[in-house]
């Protein structure tokens, strides 16, 4: 029996396993380290970091929904400097592979973040979260605007040079995901992260008002998995050469394999960790067992398998 090659790559970054935390769902990594060794997973994707400290949205920041949840955190975080001083050294010390997620309010802010991260060692890749309101354009979310998306990635690419792979994280709340994906790839993204949360709302029937402090929130969890699988499939069909880091409701190895077959090179686990801090480890073990049971010699062979004609 041959052993499975479980490794994967996103751009020029290599990872021993294809399982990652999802941005914003693992805080700084410390908390999950109580439950498993951070070096044992593919990597930690950090909470999206901005230039300055941010206190985020008012509470309540969550609502549970059928097989999912809404969150409206509003990118609370310590700002880049504190992040570089405290969180990165900790993760490096744990021998975790690190994907830093960045977020900005202007095209310039993204470039600034990239510039400061350029020289930081121990980082495997940058995930660029463009699901943020663009203050220069009436708060329209970057990821919903092909031109703004392109400009953000272009700015980051120019700043960062060819060193670090750029993973552009897209929102599913668009009419034509493939054209946005094409735009950011043309602008220099090495890989894509699909999908960010879906915009949703819950009304609190006691107050008869929107339940969340931020009114709307992002829907995540198993409820959105079929949307994520479709997004990965569509984008992989259009650009089979571009690696995809897939996320959206992945809770077990079967969910992960759906994403891999649809075209993902790696998977991020977010909401599932809230219900089960060991979810990533479970996904990793189950995915490995499934691939082996199906006779694959490597993860690579399974990537995009669902696109092959029925006859193969």
């Amino acid at each position, binding site marked *: 029996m041959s052993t499975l090659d479980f490794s994967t790559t996103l751009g020029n970054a290599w990872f021993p396993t294809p399982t990652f935390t999802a941005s*914003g*769902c693992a*805080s700084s990594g410390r*908390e999950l380290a*109580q439950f498993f060794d951070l070096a044992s997973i593919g990597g930690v994707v950090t909470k999206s970091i901005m230039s300055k400290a941010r206190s985020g949205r008012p509470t309540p920041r969550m609502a549970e929904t059928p097989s999912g949840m809404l969150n409206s*955190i509003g990118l609370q975080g310590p700002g880049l400097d504190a992040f570089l001083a405290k969180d990165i050294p900790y993760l490096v010390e744990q021998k975790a592979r690190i994907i830093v997620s960045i977020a900005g309010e202007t095209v310039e802010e993204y470039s600034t973040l990239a510039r400061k991260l350029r020289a930081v060692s121990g980082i495997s890749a940058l995930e660029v979260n463009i699901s943020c309101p663009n203050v220069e354009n009436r708060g329209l979310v970057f990821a919903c605007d092909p031109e703004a998306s392109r400009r953000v990635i272009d700015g980051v690419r120019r700043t960062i040079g060819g060193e670090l792979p750029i993973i552009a994280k897209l929102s599913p709340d668009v009419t034509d995901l493939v054209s946005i994906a094409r735009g950011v790839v043309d602008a220099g993204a090495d890989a894509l992260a699909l999908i960010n949360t879906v915009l949703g709302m819950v009304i609190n029937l006691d107050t008869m008002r929107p339940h969340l402090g931020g009114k709307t929130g992002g829907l995540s969890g198993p409820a959105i998995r079929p949307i994520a699988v479709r997004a990965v499939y569509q984008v992989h069909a259009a650009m089979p050469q571009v690696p995809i880091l897939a996320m959206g409701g992945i809770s077990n190895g079967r969910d992960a394999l759906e994403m891999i077959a649809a075209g993902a090179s790696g998977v991020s686990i977010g909401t*599932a960790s*809230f*219900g*089960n801090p060991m979810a990533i480890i479970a996904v990793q073990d189950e995915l490995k067992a499934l691939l082996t049971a199906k006779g694959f010699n490597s993860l690579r062979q399974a990537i995009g398998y669902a696109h092959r004609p029925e006859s193969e």
Partner: protein
Amino acid sequence: MSTINKNAANVRATIVSNKRVGQYFQLIINIGELATVCKPGNFVAINVGGANSRMVLRRAFAISRVSTSAISGGTMELIVAPHGQGSKWLCSQVEGDELDVIVPLGTAFGIPTEPVHVLLVGGGYGSAPLFGLAELLNARGCRVDMLLGASTAAKIYAPMEGKRAVNSLRIYTEDGSMGHKGRVTDPIPEMIHDSNIAVIYSCGPMAMLSAIDSITRGSDVVHQCAVEESMACGIGICMTCVLPVEQEDGTVAMLRTCIDGPVMDGSVVQWEKVGKAL
């Protein structure tokens, strides 16, 4: 830097008993060795709904008491109000059922080094963790007064055994169906004035905690309160459970109540900013 309770572990735990008490359910759950590391104020996070559940998040409950007996091993007690679908599911579980539990979580009530006079104030099921706390304080030689309040008698949780460690107990109900009619916070100003209360320990609805803060604000009385914000993960990774808290440098930060709480210093919580953008 605040971190997750270093004793926290994710275990499968068996229900030893589940009894209805007034409008609550008293669950005794076997958590083995972990019972020895639980402190008054700590809480647990429990998976609800079983294998095919559409509920993806854990529910948080204060540990009411722990006991370590030779026969049953270590157990913890929870007092659960059947509120929404998750807590109702939990209340419907029976002896022998297994739960997926993360325990212990969060901060604990600070115990004074001197035998001072303390006041414990509980609202609704908020009284649950106070009895275990009372025993500890009593053992340290503190004088322990207790005030319990709720909207109505069936929502007062005050077990017989629990009262042993308490020097005085007064009950308030809003409808007057048990004890005094009124709010549990009504007598506090007078009690502070008349006696030498050093610490108030409180657990209950946020409005109650905030009201106690207005009373103690400016006084010497320390206010340790166990807060309750909506929590998605309970282990510090989601940032949903935050409260605005004044930092040493005077700035206000949104702190995670599952890690920096649930027990917090009431005087630094920015009560008027709760539910507002900073």
